[in-house]
């Protein structure tokens, strides 16, 4: 790998306890992110990608959610072993987060300028006036027209795209080493999506920040990420460079995903919806979680959950028959 390792997640399990039983939203996920690397985490809704994102910052609400096992190594320290206060100092300073549905992730009764300034003042120890000046500068970097007017607005007075720019400005204000963008563009129009992705890409490139982008949208990954991890039922099932994934997927679930979305290099071929439903997070089978929907399944797949293994240089798959996976494509 060309990047020095920044974040390494090992065997992370985040479970939700409810009356209906234990929902294993994240169930033993392994992955790593290098410094300045842009990585996509793809999966259907419910696959556990948002919970993974929140788990890294220890922001899963407890109750009902709880990180029950695993390690999250960041800059050499296990985040799960830090005190609340130590963790708080990493949030927003070393690792920032950008959210889906930006408008609802801003304080509805706070002017957005104060929202940005709050983070700046907190992490840089500046006074309010300096912090506001910094906020203006950030919005200028983000190419927001008339930033001073925007800063005096409340979130409900701004568009979704503008709110997302505010969140991004807040996230980069402290020049963190990692930004977690959780479905950051999903709630936006396609045109706005593209511009937000471009902005985020450029900015993080400039300051050398790594990005973990969770999304259900294959096209977003293709546009914004150099590496992609495919998530299914709480685990990563495939992990490789983005172009390799699109050329030759090595997990039948990835194949299903690619077949189900329209793309330019598949023009003229029918879309094939994936059959079946993912297993309920409260009742994951003992074997491969994709078994019930898999076109290449064999009896052995039911025995135990296949681990994520390196199947070719620089790429891993959690399928016992990775070479056959692409066959269905």
């Amino acid at each position, binding site marked *: 790998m060309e990047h020095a390792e920044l974040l390494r997640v090992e065997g992370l399990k985040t479970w939700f306890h409810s009356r209906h039983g234990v929902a294993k939203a994240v169930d033993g996920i392994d992955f790593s992110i290098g410094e300045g690397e842009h990585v996509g985490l793809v999966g259907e809704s419910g696959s556990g990608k948002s919970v993974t994102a929140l788990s890294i910052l220890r922001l899963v609400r407890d109750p009902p959610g709880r990180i029950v096992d695993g390690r999250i190594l960041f800059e050499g320290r296990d985040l799960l072993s830090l005190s609340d206060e130590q963790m*708080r100092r990493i949030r927003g300073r070393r690792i920032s987060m950008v959210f889906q549905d930006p408008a609802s992730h801003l304080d509805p009764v706070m002017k957005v300028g104060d929202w940005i300034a709050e983070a700046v003042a907190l992490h840089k120890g500046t006074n309010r006036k300096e912090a506001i000046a910094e906020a203006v500068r950030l919005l200028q970097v983000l190419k927001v027209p008339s930033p001073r007017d925007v800063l005096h607005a409340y979130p409900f007075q701004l568009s979704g795209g503008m709110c997302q720019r505010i969140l991004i400005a807040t996230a980069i204000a402290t020049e963190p080493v990692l930004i977690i963008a959780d479905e950051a563009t999903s709630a936006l129009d396609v045109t706005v999506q593209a511009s937000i992705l471009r902005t985020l890409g450029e900015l993080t490139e400039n300051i050398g920040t790594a990005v973990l982008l969770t999304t259900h949208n294959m096209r977003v990954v293709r546009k914004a990420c150099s590496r992609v991890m495919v998530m299914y039922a709480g685990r990563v099932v495939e992990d490789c460079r983005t172009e390799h994934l699109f050329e030759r997927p090595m997990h039948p679930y990835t194949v299903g995903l690619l077949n189900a979305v329209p793309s330019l290099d598949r023009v003229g071929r029918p879309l094939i919806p994936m059959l079946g439903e993912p297993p309920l997070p409260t009742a994951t089978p003992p074997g491969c979680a994709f078994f019930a929907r898999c076109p290449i399944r064999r009896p052995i797949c039911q025995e135990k959950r296949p681990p994520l293994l390196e199947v070719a240089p620089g790429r891993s798959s959690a399928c016992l028959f990775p070479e056959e996976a692409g066959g269905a494509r």
Partner: protein
Amino acid sequence: MLRFLAWRLLFLIPVLLGASAVVFTLIQLAPGDPIDVLMGVFASPEAREALRAKYGLNDPAYVQYFRWLWHILQGDWGVSIQQRRPVLPLVMEKFWITMLLTGAAGLFAIVVGVGAGVIAAVKQNSLTDRLILLVSVFSLSMPAYWLGLVFIFLFSVTLGWLPTGGMRSFMGEKSNLDVLEHMIMPGVVAGLTPAAIIARVARAAMLEGMRLDYMTALRAKGLSERAVILRHALRNALPTIVNMTGLQIGYLILGAALFVEIIFSWPGLGYEIYKSVIGRDMPMMLGLVLFSTIVFVLLNLLVDVLYRVINPRVRAD
């Protein structure tokens, strides 16, 4: 905002007219013929009729109403039968005394209510939360006039810590400290029910806000839990809390405090209403009711305006 204020002020007119009409109707319905009061029961029918005509008592009700209203507007609120003094200055005097008690009770209610509500919300579903909820239900169910008696029995009669009632000691000190000492028990007793209601509203409003997505965003920014709760969650719950608090203080000045004033002989509006009810002093009682209504309506206006000022979402509409 100005438009809203103008509308709201305009709307005061029908409200006050309506309320005064209700008070006027009550005067009309009140037992006893005013002529009897003026002339005695034994006056001749002719003399009675002459006096009726003189005072316009034969005019249609609405004429009498507007004549009465005209007097009210000029500050002529009638004369108290018991005290033989004009009603309006008496009422004004009592009003400030009640405001003093309301201030104490309101302060208690806000501090305890908001505090308990925030704690209950932060520790949702914990033992503390349930305990606060339980105490609030019992506080709501507690008659102030009874709790006042229990307090007097405990703290005055048995322990001798606090005076049993009144506003000042009969002898000696005339300091403000003395008044303060007299204010503690009635303030707490009068503030308990509003505190319970404010606590419930504050808890609900906090929980509503704490469920929202931006709470996660705040924590992701690295804010401490304290800042998240106090600077953001409470700030968001504030409009709702202010609204309910204003309403509760309105009820307090003009109702709940009545029982407390009676129990603790606090010489304010409520105690005066009680005395006028007991003494069948209708002009005094209705004057008190009318005045209280005006205060109530104005207070509601104030709360509405305040709600707008602190809630940018409504302000923008």
